[in-house]
């Protein structure tokens, strides 16, 4: 084992209830959890793992605001200032007519801005090589990874904590770094 490799202990759970109940006990035993991988979103998992709420909603709002302002600015500039037209003597700044396009641009900017931000901050790209601890983590198992470099307890102690808290399997996983 070379010193640069990162080594993990991987606990496999069969059920989302098991893993949800196990996490507080595992944390109490002094084991630091690297991450838990699940085949579907398990509600409450982020809370027991102590993750802060996602601030992606703020990002979405800011992109929406950008879209709204860009849309309104673009249309007003083009129709009211750059090439104003006299259409039956009506106003050159007919705001009700600007609503549809401004709305569509707000939605467009929100969706794309938010999704691209989400992909970037999560490191999700077509060329990402994923760290897969157990391939069943996207199928039917709930996979808990524990980074050995960040834990003071010995391997045996961590294994014991995992099995006593409901893990059905405990394996090692090493990634070349």
């Amino acid at each position, binding site marked *: 084992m070379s010193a640069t490799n990162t080594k993990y202990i991987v606990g496999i759970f069969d059920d989302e209830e098991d893993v949800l109940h196990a996490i507080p006990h595992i944390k109490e035993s002094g084991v630091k959890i690297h991450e838990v991988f*699940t085949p579907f979103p398990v509600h409450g998992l982020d809370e027991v793992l102590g993750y802060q709420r996602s601030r992606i909603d703020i990002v979405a709002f800011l992109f929406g605001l950008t879209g709204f302002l860009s849309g309104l600015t673009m249309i007003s500039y083009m129709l009211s200032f750059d090439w104003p037209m006299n259409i039956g003597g009506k106003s050159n700044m007919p705001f009700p007519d600007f609503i549809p396009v401004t709305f569509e641009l707000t939605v467009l900017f929100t969706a794309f801005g938010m999704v691209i931000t989400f992909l970037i901050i999560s490191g*999700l790209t077509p060329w990402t090589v994923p760290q897969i601890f157990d391939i069943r983590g996207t199928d039917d198992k709930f996979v808990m990874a524990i980074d050995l470099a960040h834990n003071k307890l010995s391997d045996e102690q961590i294994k014991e904590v995992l099995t006593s808290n409901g893990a059905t399997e405990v394996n090692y996983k090493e990634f070349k770094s």
Partner: protein
Amino acid sequence: MHISSAVREPLVTGGKSYGDVTYDIVRHVEGKPTKLWFAVMGFSLVLLSLGGFSLYKTWTIGIGAWGLNKTVGWAWDITNFVWWVGIGHAGTLISAVLLLFRQKWRTAVNRAAEAMTIFAVFCAGSFILMHMGRTWLAHWALPLPNTYGSLWVNFNSPLVWDVFAISTYLSVSLVFWYIGMVPDLATIRDRATKPLTKAIYGAFSLGWTGGAKHWQRYEAVSLILAAISTPLVLSVHTIVSMDFATSVIPGWHTTIFPPYFVAGAIFSGFAMVLTLLLVTRKVYKLEHYITMTHIETMNKIVMLTGSVVGVAYITEFFMAWYSGVEYEQYCFLNRMFGPYWWAYWSMMACNVFSPQLLWFKSIRRNLVATFTLSIIVNIGMWFERFVIIVSSLHRDYIPSSWRDFSPTIYDVGDYIFTFGLFFTLFFLFAKYLPVVNMAEVKSVLKSSTDKPSHKSH
């Protein structure tokens, strides 16, 4: 006091485990294409090529190849456009509106419905491009700097709103669909044995691993996408209806159009979802996922929106009389008893009368009846658009301008092209992508199954 609520029918039957869900869906992607698939795919490709030839002729001859004349300047092109874009409303409605309303039954049908939505909007878009005649100048519809002293597009025009609405709807639906599919693509990647399969699904799954932090963000993103897609869905057909409603043509110039078109869009969209899902369900043996409860629920929506559309027809008619505008009154009488009476009465029979059969539970839960009705509704909705467009145009103000419309072979051929496109894309989807959202079905599995079991494959 003891309170007990009625037991809901389970969403997933057959006592499926998480592993069973993966296996039941992914096996169709992993297996070799069947003979049946090659047969239907071949048929779609024939339609696509025949239609493609017609499209080529339309481009080289110009839209004079169609049966249009000076009086009837819009006919099959816009009828087909509105028809397809209406069909393309169900998917996002199911995935966005029903997500906000916490309707868990959507999980089994949203993937296929969204795919259908996107393909239908492709078909709608191809009619927009076709009806421009000179398709290669389509970018003129966008506000791009140009050499005419920067003469911009007219933002007062609903046709420009349409450009923005349809392109936003298409791209946002595509993003919503794709993001929802990423976890399932990762499942396929992790099960793949062949290097090429692993590489392709690996690239498209963006390195997804299902970490708790990623799921947390993913759920927030889905919820916000749903929240912004809900008004988007409603806006698209509202704006399509404004193409007509903001004009001064009798029969088009009515304020009821936006809600009436949106209801019609949901109506035809759900009918098309039923048509496709009933076949997919049968061929892929998905009876445990798309249950009778799902079909019945969708039938109820068809019945409701069909009735809304019926009320809208009657309201239009009433308003024509009540307004006292003789042109409006003539237009509606002409629809019923004029040269296109058969189109009007086909529309009434298909859209207003036939969905009333769905008041009967036995019909809502009957596969053959549902399938037949879903096709009747789609025919009816095509006639609705034809009636609105052609019957309002063909009798102009001056009787010397009165002209009838009859389609040419290129009108028919271009319509066939979109069918070819739609089915080719749908069959590709059905073979190479997971037709049911596995992650979402797994998330409702325990709270809604008839027999919880945790055996794995």
